[in-house]
């Protein structure tokens, strides 16, 4: 999996900041941001997660003409017992267990990233409530328009035998 072009845009940062409930004006006002240390609108720390919007094949987005596992007339649009695709980012049968970022420099509006994804380790554990847990790690390297590494992301997904209700 790879993302060939992930432009970091002001309106996307605005919507992302709204969605995480962060009122910091630096995310909404380019003039204000220009006067800060970063000198431009910075991306919130977890913003690169939204690179999914620029992955043409991202499996957790409905696509025209393809079946979708969410509800319509029926509780699911796909007839099968399993709740759908799973995997690293918290898919149908999979949940997101961990996420780690290393920031090599501040990511700002105007950057144009590419992302390459490397498969990491996989391991298993026996859970108390959810049965066998299968963990898998993916490492995503986000590089800028000059090929320089900006963010390294390490995600861990877990697939469970049963719904993992906790808390």
């Amino acid at each position, binding site marked *: 999996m790879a993302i060939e072009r992930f432009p970091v845009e002001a309106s*996307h940062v605005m*919507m*992302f900041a*709204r*969605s*995480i*409930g*962060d009122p*910091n004006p*630096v995310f909404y006002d380019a003039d204000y941001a220009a006067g*800060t*240390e*970063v000198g431009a609108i*910075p991306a*919130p*720390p*977890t913003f690169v*997660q*939204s*690179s*999914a*919007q620029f*992955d043409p094949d*991202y499996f*957790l*987005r*409905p696509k025209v003409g393809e079946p979708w*596992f*969410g*509800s319509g007339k029926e*509780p*699911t649009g796909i007839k099968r017992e399993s*709740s759908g695709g799973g995997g690293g*980012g*918290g*898919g*149908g049968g999979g*949940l*997101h*267990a*961990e*996420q*780690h*970022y*290393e*920031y090599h420099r*501040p990511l*700002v509006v105007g950057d144009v990233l590419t992302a390459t994804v490397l498969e990491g380790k996989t391991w298993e554990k026996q859970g108390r409530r959810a049965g066998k847990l299968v963990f898998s790690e993916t490492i995503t390297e986000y590089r800028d328009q000059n090929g320089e590494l900006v963010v390294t992301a*390490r995600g*861990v997904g877990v697939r469970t035998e*049963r*719904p*993992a*209700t*906790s*808390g």
Partner: protein
Amino acid sequence: MALSASNVSVGQTFEQVLVEDLKRTQLVMYAGSSGDYNPLHSDEPFATQVAGYPSVFAHGMLTMGMTGRVLTDALGDGRLLSYGGRFTSQVFPGDNLKGVATITSIDTVDGVPVATFSISTTNQDGVEVFSGEARGRLDS
């Protein structure tokens, strides 16, 4: 509004209320901004009848995203060097979340003061939903 190494100390905490009475609409907003449209987070019939959960629940990354504000508000923008953690319990509509970042060490890396934080986000019952660590650059 950056933190300076001369006026912070190990053990110092930074705390914020992240959300009160989390709304399903915020989960929809996060789905739209992040691109993660997993119906587990916005589609009650799917989440309950197909996947077997008591209701829709928040993206882990929404919790981590909300928690990040504790760090950027404390450190200033563009100063994080790393931020990570694990999702230790699910977050449901109606939850109240509080994020706390505690300075666990202050070191000098390549001549630059760097603070390490432990991070804990908890719900209204005191259950930890996100547990993490971060490092950020300070002014000298």
